[in-house]
């Protein structure tokens, strides 16, 4: 009974993963949307349901949903529930791009602090890309 209602839409999330729990929910849901596992129009669980699934407070899920709504990735219909927006896929990619930019900036700042010059940075980026392949 305790477990049969559990869905695995996303998660699990953990304080050990770094970042606030609500941020982790935002990031996971964005990934689901940008990778198409949650297509436009798909219904999301109510925040109380998701809170139960992820074992977090209702407020944590509410905050995550509010942020996704602000970013235009999901929308709410009073009395009906929460759904993935038509443009959710693109919005999600835009948001991911913004995050990637932010992380690159962070990385370059670290590298600069370590004494790398801008020429070295490009070289570093190529190196990392090669590793990825």
């Amino acid at each position, binding site marked *: 009974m305790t477990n049969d209602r559990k869905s695995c839409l996303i998660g699990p999330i953990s304080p050990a993963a770094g970042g606030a729990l609500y941020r982790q929910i935002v990031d996971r849901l964005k990934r689901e949307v940008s990778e198409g596992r949650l297509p436009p129009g798909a219904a999301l669980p109510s925040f109380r349901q998701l809170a139960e699934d992820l074992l*977090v407070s209702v407020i944590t899920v509410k905050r995550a949903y509010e942020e996704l709504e602000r970013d235009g990735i999901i929308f709410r219909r009073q009395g009906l529930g929460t759904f993935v927006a038509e443009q959710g896929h693109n919005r999600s990619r835009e948001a991911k791009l913004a995050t990637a930019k932010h992380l690159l900036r962070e990385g370059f700042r670290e590298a600069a602090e370590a004494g790398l010059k801008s020429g070295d940075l490009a070289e570093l980026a190529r190196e990392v890309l090669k590793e990825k392949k």
Partner: protein
Amino acid sequence: MNNAIEIRGLVKRYPRFQLGPLDLTVPRGAIYGLIGPNGAGKTTAIDMVFGMGRNDAGQIHVLGLDHRADEIALKQHAAYVGSDLNFQVWGKVGRAIRFVRGFYRGWDDACCAALMQAFHLSDSDRIATLSFGARTKLSLLLALARRPEVLILDEPTTGLDAVSKQQVFTELLKAVEDGERTVLISSHGLSDIERFADHVGMIKNGKLLLEGRMDEVVDRFRFVEFFSTNGTEFQNRAGLIILRRTENRWHALLDQKSDAQNWLQTQGAQQISLTRLTLEDLFVALAREEEVA
């Protein structure tokens, strides 16, 4: 009525301790974590709600019901789980359940059966041979199966292992799923409270120190590190609690709602850096210090 529990100006005097004047507001549909050091007055406050001890001043309303004038109605709608787990007189789990069941119109047999399964209890279990954790679960089951609108728990997870704790919180989240039911939980398990509770109130020396939405309360504070270059001796002030110093390096707790950060800059603090903290970090810093707000 948006608040499930409203405590206003509550005072209880003992020879060596005074609770209050205490104001506490628990919104409907919330899981509210009541935290505070040992001896802060959490149990005293909770006991007053259920008429265990008479308050010297102040009002307590639960679902709009006065805790004295409407005592019976209040106890029909609100359930209490404390630390007394002495159910031995009933012998077996099934007998305890049949006994308690009779008192409550809202008793939900299906819910009770589901909880029995979730908590691995059975009618034929002898209460005397149950582990401490299983007895805690039995007391929770007796409260939850009544489907109370308000559930008040005084340190229900103390002494439970990690698996049992998770089972308990799963059931509590389930209990508030419809948005109508409210849980007030006092606990020292701060990482659990931070994860599961929507609202938090911290009391110390009988007074409310902080109250609000969990994310807002935790987000409001930061650890701050800074360096003094001009020999300033920094002291506690509104929004700033000095935690430690080594020569010219200082560590403190900073309330971002105060002007403490600006003040630090005007006092010549250098290289000010802020770090996020957990509810537990916040608790420890505040528990050590008297003056915050």
